[in-house]
């Protein structure tokens, strides 16, 4: 952070959750799972899916408009649009470019990045680093977008039980010194590269391939490496875990979040979960959870907040920020 110029923080948030609900009972029937198993194993009760005609751009734009409104920022004031997704409408061009033309962010560069379920956190890191390096970028728009339902076989109990669709967006802007992002951390453990994957092409039956997932490997990776990722980010920020006021984790599984909080020595009320209500929304899960936590006033001006995720591959990321609420700051 430049002590003269200040830092970069999140100044507006938005989300989009589709209307069509899919309850566990329907998946359990299709996947041949005993009723009640999904909630027991994951804490998830339902998820929401984008309709067949819906697009990644539509939901990304819906979340982005909300974030821009919350920030009080005009699309023309955005200098960077970053799409975080593995489910764009086209293989190329980038989802971010379609968002760019739809919103009219005419002064922005736009591109996508993929780090799967931790892509939003990685995107926030890239955007804030760009803003710190280039003072001409006053604001950035970072969007996590997931239409995972189009890549699921609902009769596959290993993957069907987790995912839902959604989008979450954040506007990054300049904040006073001491606020905003304090540190970021990204690391990869690639031994289990094949454990969660979506291969191109069709399977032996000529059907488009779906997500394949080894839940045991995911569990081992998260339990073994995600706490360390958080600790390193907090240390980079010059803080200790005791200084952290609130955690937002990728919403993969309620039990894993409970475990992570335990490993970090944090009380359960210092995190927010929505995986129970909307499932694992991949790249959208961190910004949606953050949006809801802020809406519910669980995060206050000055709080030290950690965003932490894990994506297939596996890539672990954590960002530490001191929350800046301009309304509170103005009244101080």
């Amino acid at each position, binding site marked *: 952070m430049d002590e003269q110029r200040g830092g970069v923080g999140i100044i507006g948030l938005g989300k989009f959750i589709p209307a069509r609900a899919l309850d566990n009972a329907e998946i359990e029937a299709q996947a041949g799972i005993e009723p009640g198993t999904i909630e027991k*194993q*994951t804490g998830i009760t339902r998820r929401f899916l984008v309709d067949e005609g819906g697009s990644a751009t539509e939901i990304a734009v819906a979340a982005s408009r909300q974030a821009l409104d919350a920030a009080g920022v005009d699309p023309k004031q955005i200098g960077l649009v970053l799409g975080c997704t593995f489910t764009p409408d086209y293989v190329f061009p980038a989802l971010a470019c379609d968002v760019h033309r739809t919103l009219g962010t005419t002064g922005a560069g736009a591109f996508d990045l993929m780090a799967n379920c931790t892509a939003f956190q990685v995107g926030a890191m890239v955007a804030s680093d760009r803003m710190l390096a280039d003072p001409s970028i006053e604001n950035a728009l970072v969007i996590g977008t997931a239409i995972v339902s189009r890549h699921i076989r609902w009769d596959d109990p290993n993957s069907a039980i987790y995912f839902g669709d959604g989008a979450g967006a954040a506007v990054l802007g300049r904040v006073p010194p001491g606020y905003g992002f304090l540190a970021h951390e990204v690391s990869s453990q690639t031994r289990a590269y094949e454990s969660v994957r979506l291969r191109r092409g069709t399977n032996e039956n000529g059907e488009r391939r779906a997500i394949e997932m080894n*839940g*045991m490997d995911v*569990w*081992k990776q998260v*339990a*073994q*490496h995600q*706490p*360390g990722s958080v600790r390193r980010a907090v240390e980079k920020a010059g803080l200790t875990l005791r200084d952290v006021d609130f955690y937002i984790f990728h919403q993969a*599984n309620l*039990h*894993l979040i*409970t*475990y992570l909080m*335990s*490993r970090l020595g944090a009380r359960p009320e210092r995190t927010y979960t929505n995986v129970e209500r909307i499932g694992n929304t991949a790249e959208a899960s961190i910004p949606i959870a953050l949006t809801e936590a802020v809406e519910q006033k669980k995060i206050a001006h000055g709080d030290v907040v950690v965003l932490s995720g894990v994506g297939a591959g596996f890539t672990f990321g954590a960002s530490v920020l001191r929350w800046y609420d301009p309304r509170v700051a103005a009244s101080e």
Partner: protein
Amino acid sequence: MDSGELKHVVALALNVDDAEIGDDASMDTVEAWDSLRHLYVVMAVEEAFGVTFDDGEAVAITGLPLIRDGLERRGITFTS
């Protein structure tokens, strides 16, 4: 310490009767001991015995003998 106390902690975390947790109980032998319940086993043992396992070790202690070894390395001795 009586190993029965450890078995009781593990049984509670797995939501099974103490009798299901034999000396060699593990994820391979106890049906309820799946990957996610294991997280609760680790949390319960850490809290009950006032210890902290390393992140990697916590993933690896998937059976009673391994948990017992981990506790003994932290100075907790078992009489039976």
